[in-house]
């Protein structure tokens, strides 16, 4: 009954009969739930780690499991198991069904296999099939390039992590969809030391790609050198200034600001609950006309991309803010149903132990008109923020993010390197202060992970050079 259009044989991969899934969906609806869904996952994860000039260890991990959810009105019941025997699956379905109590049983529709979305994966040499030796060679190359960059480099850590995730989703509406998602990242940390002062630098590469990705500009040598360069440069950096000043965000890495300051608050669950400051701002102007923001899960090879989301929806490029006006939200099935909106394909979960929630994929500010050099020239005294270590936002719109390195801007020129600053603000305020947007859209390091409600998912974000007219900068 499993058709040929799915990317892999579900029954074989998960070692179960598809009839067990249908029985589970029926059991899940037996107490009166109005929707049931089974999420099957098998994941292989491998890594290799080098430090102290030694390839320290390798690791291999397999996980297999099933998550079952049931809706009864706005209530979700969820159960999971890593024992896929028909008996255990039925028990899990019954425990998820306990939230429903109307007693009116709905029959589950017949499962119909549905082809996936666009092919967003770019893999010639699959990391999960490659010999460990090939991956260890990449780690070693990054390590040695970092080590050899400068005598000031005191310690290096390099690692590669790859995974292949097989997912299948069956629901009581009859949907049956599947996806096989590759993911790899190579990262390097360098610590530079001079006269007792230590600084660290970081770089990395990867995405939904194969090992051939590391043959191009994202070579392990380039990754190692970049981590070393950042650490060495920081030794000469002075503390960032503190106070309110114009801030220019470098293209690429500063996408994390858009992710934190805007993206999270456009996730539908926060708006449905009216906890996001955007909940009543659909169609309203919240920012300058310079600001257009998208989330696009279909960017080929990008770390945040997927062919179907974790509810089986084919994702689409979603317009969030257009010329400063709120145009859309990131939807999962539950929020879309309760809000009466269409799906956007942003229902994601960390693994089978979690139910899906609306998440970002690849979030970015669209390119603008300004030459990046012109943007810097427009600032008399301010901060140019280049590299970031992360950020955080709360629903009230207050956010913060950490700048690891940057430059001072004095009289329209980049001058002294500075380190360790924190930018704080509220998103209502910052969107109104984005004065200039550059023509140089770029994405940040493809190694990022976003956490929400204890669930981690791979994401990417990007932006062109941006000028914010005034922002609170906290130095050291």
């Amino acid at each position, binding site marked *: 009954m499993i058709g040929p259009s799915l990317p892999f044989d579900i029954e074989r991969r998960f070692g179960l009969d598809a009839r067990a899934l249908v029985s589970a969906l029926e059991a899940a609806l037996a107490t009166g739930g109005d929707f049931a869904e089974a999420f099957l996952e098998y994941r292989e994860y491998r890594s*290799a780690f080098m*430090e*102290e000039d030694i*390839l*320290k*260890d*390798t*690791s*291999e*991990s*397999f*996980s*297999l*499991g099933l998550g079952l959810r049931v809706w009864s009105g*706005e*209530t*979700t019941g*969820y*159960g999971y198991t*890593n*024992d896929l025997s028909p008996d*255990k699956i039925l028990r*899990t379905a019954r*425990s998820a069904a*306990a939230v429903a109590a109307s007693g009116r049983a709905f029959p589950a529709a017949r499962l119909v296999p549905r082809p996936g979305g666009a092919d967003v994966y770019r893999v010639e040499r699959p990391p999960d099939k490659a010999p*460990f*030796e090939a991956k260890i060679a990449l780690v070693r190359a990054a390590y040695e390039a970092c080590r050899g960059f400068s005598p000031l480099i*005191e*310690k290096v850590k390099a690692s590669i992590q790859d995974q292949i995730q097989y997912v299948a989703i069956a629901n009581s509406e009859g949907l049956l969809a599947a996806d096989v998602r590759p993911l790899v990242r190579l990262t390097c940390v360098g*610590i530079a030391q001079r006269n007792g*002062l*230590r600084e*660290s630098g970081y770089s990395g590469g990867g995405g939904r790609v194969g090992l051939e990705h590391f043959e191009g500009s994202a070579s392990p040598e380039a990754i190692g050198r970049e981590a070393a360069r950042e650490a060495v440069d920081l030794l000469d950096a002075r503390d960032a200034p*503190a*106070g*309110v000043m114009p801030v220019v965000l470098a293209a690429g890495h500063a996408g994390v600001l858009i992710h934190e300051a805007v993206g999270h608050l456009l996730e539908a669950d926060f708006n449905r*609950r009216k*906890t996001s400051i955007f909940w009543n701002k659909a169609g309203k102007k919240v920012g300058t006309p310079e600001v257009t923001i998208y989330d696009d899960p279909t960017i080929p090879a990008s770390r945040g991309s997927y062919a179907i989301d974790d509810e089986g929806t084919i994702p689409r490029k979603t317009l969030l803010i257009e010329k400063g006006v709120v145009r859309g939200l990131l939807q999962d099935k539950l929020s879309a149903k309760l809000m009466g909106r269409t799906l956007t394909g942003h229902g994601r979960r960390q693994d089978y*132990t979690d*139910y899906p929630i609306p998440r970002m994929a690849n979030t970015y500010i669209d390119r603008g008109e300004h030459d990046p050099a012109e943007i810097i020239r427009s600032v008399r005294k301010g901060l140019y923020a280049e590299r970031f*270590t992360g*950020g*955080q936002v*709360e*629903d*009230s*719109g*207050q*956010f*913060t*993010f*950490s700048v690891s390195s940057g430059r001072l801007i004095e009289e329209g020129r980049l001058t002294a390197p500075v380190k*360790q600053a*924190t930018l*704080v603000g509220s998103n209502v305020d910052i969107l109104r202060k984005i004065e200039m947007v550059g023509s140089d859209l770029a994405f940040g390091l493809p190694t990022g992970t976003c956490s929400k409600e204890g669930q981690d998912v791979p994401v990417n974000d990007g932006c062109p050079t941006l000028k914010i007219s005034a922002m*609170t*900068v*906290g*130095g*050291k």
Partner: protein
Amino acid sequence: MAAPASVPDDLALAERLVRFGRSCGADEIEVGIGDGEEFSVDVRMGQIENLIEAGSRGAGIRVIKDQRTAYASSSDLSPEALERLIRGAVRRAELSQPDPFASLADLSPVRIDAASLDIFDPEIEALPAETKIKLALETERIALADRRITNSHGAGFSSHIARTALASSNGFAGAYAKTFCGLGVGLQAGDTDHLVEEDWHSSRIFFRDLESPEAIARTAIERTVRQLHPRRIGTRRVPVVFEPPMTASLLGFLFGCVSGTAVYQRSTFLADQLGRKIGRDGLTVIDDGLMPRRIGTGPFDAEGIPAQRTVVLENGVLKRFLCNTYASRKLGLPVTGNADGGGVGPNNFYLEPGPHDPAAILRSCDQALLLTRTLGHGLNPVTGDISRGAFGLWIEKGAIVHPVSEITIAGNLGEILRNIEMIGSDLEFRGAICGPTIKVAEMLVAGN
């Protein structure tokens, strides 16, 4: 749900896998089996939003052959899968380079009786789902009854029963069960464009030790509404008073800086400071895995090293780094029972309370920031530098005058440790890392 595997079953399986690994050629092998039962319910606006009930098991394996290490883990515990995984790990060990420090822990003659630690509450196993749901509903109901509260992030109750079994080719075999439960609520106040939010929760080993719905709701309300109508302040250097949750967050950063792993990796500013005076008199920090009924307590760590009490800082002097076996061999320092995964984790890591009533600490300030919450990631263990978004209450002449927002605080952990002027008497063991109110002589607060 099916009856979960019992601890003795898991231990027998772990021991069998150790023997199997040795027969495959591993010089040393360590097998841990974890078995968890999870219950959690989130309620919002008086309705159940999510209810999770589930169980899962998993195995983690470390193999050493010719001083070469490989790790493996699996959630498929069928004998075939596990044997394949171990054979693979033994083969994979050859890919690593020999590391003279790679070795499992030495078997300790000390055995700690898990029962003496009081970390399993049988009441949690027996607690009906209805009771747990009612507690979450009750907590949110009390909070929403306050007219100043305008929205709810929801309330939640969760409980967890975790069983751990560990066997190792050095002869160690041990197992224990531990319970956790938690109850909390998140709230918002103010109108859409001037929202403030905060949450409060209680986590304990024993159900009867949890704070009541009333107490949790009241604290959450108070902590939320006190942030309403914040003002901005100008950039300045002032004393900063840390509330206990903020002291805990600072201690979390300190933990990362006294971790033996960070020390041998040279990624902590304290790497060369052992035996030196790095903090004020009276500053004593302890890591203790033996405290009955505490969240961070357990009879042995992830390598089978028995729990102990370690004085990390004594009267400001750095006495010990917290080491797993690898860091201990690398640094030539004692193991401290902090092995956690491949690294080092806290047991109960806390700052000993001082003589001062927290109210008296506030009264001692002419002008200061009472730090209530931070946001962001601006902690750099390599330098000790701290730079974070912050929320707080402004203090003038010993009294709170108004909330402040959109500020950052900046400082350096090394400087802070030297500048802790007062330590409060209000230590409460709310989590694995905790501390009392402290007053730091001066930090940079950046605002307008």
